[in-house]
């Protein structure tokens, strides 16, 4: 009997937490289908009286949402692909290839993790301005092309590749590039998926740097555009909620599809590190 009550309490609390976690997201979805002005009533309506896509139509046809969506996809995909390649190469080198100064370099990298990225932003801006990269896609992509955390993640995972496997390939005369692409990359597959999700989500959700470096409206990413739209359209609940849906939905779907990899990587990066 006591056990039943305990089970009831535990599950009721879990349910309450789940409602609190999901309610704002579900409310966003519901309001995004409401007629303009419908949400600004008391008591606040929970459900659209007659659902419609007019807010989305307005966003894409008049507010240029398609352009922002494209920018976000382009920048996030480039960051993901480039950083995936560079971090994997470096992480594998730090784990498996002996070279002079390797351990000292890696320790320095780890120590640099404590420096917040914002410290670098002012000089970085000036530097990119000199290079003519302010207000270009490249400017938004450049700082994300390699990440210490990503190198660390790959290194942790690559250490589990048996040395004998690599040695055998070397004895057979395989070049280091061939070993990397034909033996190492396949062995690293799970962590590559993890890394890809991390960097894509990171770039998609990033706000401060794109806000600084992309002042030209036609180049802005979704979060930056949404922030400025929300200042212009303070009273347009329904429109803003549709904008939030467009921004959040791609990453939420990506997470739902690949959550196993995401959570595994999160644990490799923190607990076991």
């Amino acid at each position: 009997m006591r056990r039943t009550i305990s089970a009831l309490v535990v599950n009721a609390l879990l349910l309450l937490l789940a409602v609190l976690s999901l309610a704002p997201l579900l409310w966003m979805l519901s309001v995004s289908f409401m007629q303009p002005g419908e949400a600004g009533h008391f008591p606040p309506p929970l459900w659209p009286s007659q659902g419609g896509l007019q807010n989305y139509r307005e966003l894409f046809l008049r507010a240029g949402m398609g352009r922002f969506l494209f920018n976000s996809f382009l920048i996030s995909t480039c960051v993901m692909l480039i950083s995936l390649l560079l971090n994997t190469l470096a992480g594998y080198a730090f784990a498996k290839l002996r070279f002079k100064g390797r351990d000292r370099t890696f320790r320095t990298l780890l120590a640099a993790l404590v420096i917040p990225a914002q410290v670098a932003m002012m000089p970085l801006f000036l530097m990119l301005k000199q290079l003519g990269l302010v207000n270009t896609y490249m400017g938004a992509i450049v700082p994300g092309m390699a990440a210490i955390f990503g190198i660390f993640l790959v290194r942790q995972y690559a250490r589990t590749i048996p040395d004998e496997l690599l040695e055998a390939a070397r004895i057979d005369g395989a070049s280091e590039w061939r070993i990397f692409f034909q033996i190492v990359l396949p062995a690293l597959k799970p962590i590559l998926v993890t890394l890809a999700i991390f960097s894509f989500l990171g770039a998609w959700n990033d706000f401060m740097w794109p806000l600084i470096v992309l002042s030209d409206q036609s180049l802005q990413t979704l979060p930056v555009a949404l922030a400025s739209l929300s200042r212009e359209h303070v009273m347009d609940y329904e429109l803003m909620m549709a904008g939030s849906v467009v921004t959040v939905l791609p990453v939420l779907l990506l997470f739902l599809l690949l959550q196993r990899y995401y959570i595994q990587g999160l644990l490799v990066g923190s607990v076991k590190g």
Partner: protein
Amino acid sequence: MKAATAGWVFAAPALLVIVLFFGLPVLAALALSLTDFDIYALADLDNLRFVGLDNYVGLLQNPLFWKSLGNTLYFVAVGVPLSIAMSLGAAVLLHSRLARFKPFFRTAFFAPVVTTVVAVAVIWRYLFHTRYGLVNWGLSWVGIDPVDWLGDPNWAMPTIILFAVWKNFGYNMIIFLAGLQSIPEDLYEAARIDGAGRWKQFRHITLPMLGPVLLLVAILTMAGYFQLFAEPYVMTQGGPLESTKSVLYLMYEEGFKWWNLGNASAVAFLLFLLMAATTSGLLWLARRRGIE
């Protein structure tokens, strides 16, 4: 190509990017913070002067700096413990043998973590709207008068803290969950035989066994919370009465609104120093209590 050469060749591209776009800028920021780099220097470098520690001294005499520092510390001091407590609570519930539908709950709690701060901050701004917000409507059911959540200087920061806890607790929950799973079941068994209740088990087994994980989570969460920016930028624009202006918000405005890049760099370094000092303090405290 020998393995030794290959090592450098493979590591070089990533190292080059990190040195060029992070390492050098950090050093340059230190130099920049000792100059009066402003909009005139931006137009013509001849206008640049070395001013020593003037930026730092000026900041320490600037009430707005102290205000934003106080706001950030408030956010960290209240937000981090609250966030960790919430994560730990959720993890313990989810770890319980009595819990049903675990994968669903885990995904539900984690969903806010992957969402875009700006987008969900926009949602919260409407949920906490004084007249039409769902929160005040809910409170009116239990007889509480409407609260001006984001318009009242006393309530704006607590609202942002609530938002941050909602957004972030799922992340640490996953880490705690892994920690809980690694605690041997016999410890609890032995405690039960000795007649220890649930709370005693939590206090004397779970918490000490989670010590190292708690320390790690505390350090990572704190580092994240010190970097408060997007939430006030979207929800309150730093107001009302500067009550939600964070140190990074100040840095952003100094640097990219007024183009005082020298001063902004000094703000960034002071924040970095503060973060380093707090982390060291936490490590020291942990070592004294015997947590490694």
